[in-house]
């Protein structure tokens, strides 16, 4: 009986992973295709995409916050939440319910319209970026041909939200925090985009689906030689800064600015900021995994046929999860290890070091591309 279950499960897994023709249509394409035949079918696909994204957002938010608290606890020789649910798994759910059911406070002198808009702006930017991330060939809401450009564009919406929130709160600490966040995010956006451009150069496409497929023969991290590695490092540093996480968490800087730009936010709106922070981390990690680590592609090592077969058997979603999870762990590791930079040091790091580095790196990448020395060896 047991054996039968295991075989069925393995077969099911295999059928998921056996979707090896990588031209699977995305949900958006299915909807467009269906639109000609029946509007209902089209609506079904659109609804599925929306519901899927929202569900993923909630689930990811809950589990990431839980993971962060547990991981932090382990770094600090503690246990973390243990009481609510099995080993504290329902802790974040309780937090969410509590935050939603808190009283709705708006400071008297706040700019009400902006105060209400800010958290939704942050979340909607994050949501728009999330639909682009290819989690597996089957779980792909939309594959825009300008996917990368779109993600960096809507990612910038969160800056606007933070600036508005800090301004609308009518609190000096909030304002200081949001101004810091503005200066920081706008600066680091430059080297972030430049490091993305390296991969765009290599693949010749802005579509995330195509970028994943271009890595069939090897992850860009290895195939791209030095420029890709440098770009990966710059990407990780710059996205930590974009995420406002330690060592770049100046916008919130608990010990300096009480709670930074969201000092005056409570209840649901604070929960949205909190959610956006964690989902942005997922997006950054997912993007890094997609661009540099082959997305949902399994790990292949040239010459080891049996090994590669076994790797093929693991479903793409698991691969994507593993890679993204690893990067998220790195982000959390950084957060619970490093002290915080000062604002002038932070800007110096970007303008005097990272920006020149990534510019030179882009030129080197172009050179590598011209000479055609990339594309061989390494794990794929």
């Amino acid at each position, binding site marked *: 009986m047991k054996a039968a279950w295991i075989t069925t499960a393995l077969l099911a897994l295999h059928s998921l992973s056996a979707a090896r023709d990588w031209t699977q249509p995305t949900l958006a394409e299915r909807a467009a295709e269906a639109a000609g035949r029946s509007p209902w079918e089209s609506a079904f696909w659109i609804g599925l995409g929306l519901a899927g994204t929202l569900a993923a957002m909630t689930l990811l938010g809950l589990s990431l916050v839980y993971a962060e608290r547990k991981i*932090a606890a382990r*770094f*600090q*020789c*503690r246990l973390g939440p243990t009481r609510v649910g099995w080993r504290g798994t329902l802790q974040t759910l309780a937090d969410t319910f509590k935050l939603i059911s808190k009283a709705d406070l708006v400071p008297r002198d706040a700019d009400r319209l902006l105060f209400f808009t800010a958290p939704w702006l942050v979340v909607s930017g994050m949501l728009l970026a999330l639909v682009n991330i290819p989690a597996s060939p089957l779980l792909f809401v939309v594959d825009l041909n300008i996917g990368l450009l779109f993600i960096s564009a809507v990612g910038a919406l969160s800056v606007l939200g933070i600036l508005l929130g800090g301004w609308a709160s009518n609190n*000096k*600490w909030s304002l*200081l925090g949001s101004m*810091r966040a503005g200066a920081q995010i706008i600066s680091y956006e430059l080297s972030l985009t430049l490091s993305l451009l390296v991969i765009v150069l290599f693949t010749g496409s802005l579509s995330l689906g195509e970028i994943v497929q271009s890595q069939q023969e090897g992850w860009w991290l290895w195939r791209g030689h030095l420029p890709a590695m440098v770009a990966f490092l710059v990407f990780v540093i710059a996205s930590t800064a974009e995420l406002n996480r*330690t*060592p770049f*968490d*100046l916008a919130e*800087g*608990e*010990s*300096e*600015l*009480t709670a930074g730009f969201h000092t005056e936010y409570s209840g649901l709106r604070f929960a949205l900021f909190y959610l956006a922070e964690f989902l942005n981390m997922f997006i950054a990690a997912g993007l890094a995994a997609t661009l540099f680590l082959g997305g949902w592609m399994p790990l292949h090592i040239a010459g080891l046929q049996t090994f590669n077969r076994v790797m093929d058997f693991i479903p793409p979603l698991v691969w994507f999860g593993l890679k993204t999870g690893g990067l998220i762990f790195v982000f959390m590791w950084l957060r*619970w*290890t*490093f*002290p*915080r*930079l*000062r*604002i*002038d*040091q932070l800007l110096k790091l970007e303008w005097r070091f990272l920006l020149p580095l990534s510019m030179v790196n882009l030129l080197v990448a172009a050179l590598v591309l011209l000479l055609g020395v990339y594309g061989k060896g390494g794990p794929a």
Partner: protein
Amino acid sequence: MTPKTLTLQDLLRTDFAPGGGTQEYFVNMGPQHPATHGVLRLLLKLDGETLRQVIPVLGYIHRGIEKICEHQTYRQIVHLSDRLDYLSALANNWCVTRVVERAAGIETNERIETIRTLMAELERLQSHTLWWGVFGMDLGAFTPFLHGFRDREELTQIFEDTIGARLTMNYIQPGGLLHDLHKDFAPRVRAWLKDFGTKVDEYDRMLSGNLIAQKRLVDIGALSGDEALGLGATGPVLRASGVPWDLRRVRPYGVYDQLDFVVPVGEKGDCWDRYWVRIEEMRQSLALCETLIENIPEGKTMLVKPAAKIRLPEGTFYEELETPRGIFGVHLHSRGKDMPWRFHFRSPNLHNLWCITKIAPGARVADIVAMLAGLDLIVPDMDR
């Protein structure tokens, strides 16, 4: 002509900053702010992120201890001294005890003095571990906070074995000690000291060697030796500025005259020097404790009847000693009763606080947090 008195309102004037043309503004840091470790309130005059002026506003925990002391017997005052600088409660107890013992002419024996010295050194370690943890947290690294507290907790339990209290000790009393040592005291302290030796190195690996931490500390808030003396700074703050002024060495009390230790002295007096001096003091205290725990002589631990009323002769008496934060002094003005006429504490934290008004202008908002952490202030001790 009577001198003019001011109120806080008179100071709240902003201006356009010279050169830049931007307007200055005031921000309240505290009384509820995570960086001020309690209820210290700093009024910051800022130009953008640059500090122009710092106005400390005290009194949010002014409990009038000096007034209360005038109505307490000398034994009761010991327990009030716990609640000043609660992280150096034993040192405060000891200082009050010393001034009462000298005024009453009580001589103590070698065992009492050795245990007092040992306890004071252990408490210095305990206080510095807490400082290190909070220091890390102020710089934005949360993990050191928990590691510091982890090591502190162990020592707290050792204290609790003997003293029966975790924080407000009330252990060193006029005439001796409240209790003798617990029978597990020596083995537990030995085990802890052995363990803690590796922990100090861990602290170094975790925070001292961190590039970001060094960038945040080196050359921030430099204070020269003369300035520090003029501002009344004592303890690690003064020693970081290059003045080797340590009462344990200059005017030894307890059994410090029989002990061999180095007084760490900084060079520039910046935040890094203050950090380094304290880390080095931990190592020195560790060595001192290792020596002391092996050399506790036999003898009685209480030389006067605990219930006896202490009546002091008329006069003004003063004693001071070196707590983890600097010189703690006690003025006692007696009129021959069993309660003092006037009792005054010289607070090390109050004097160290004024350094912030000197070193902060021109720095950034983030720097003031590093400076406050480097000065290691305990607010109830300032306000009394």
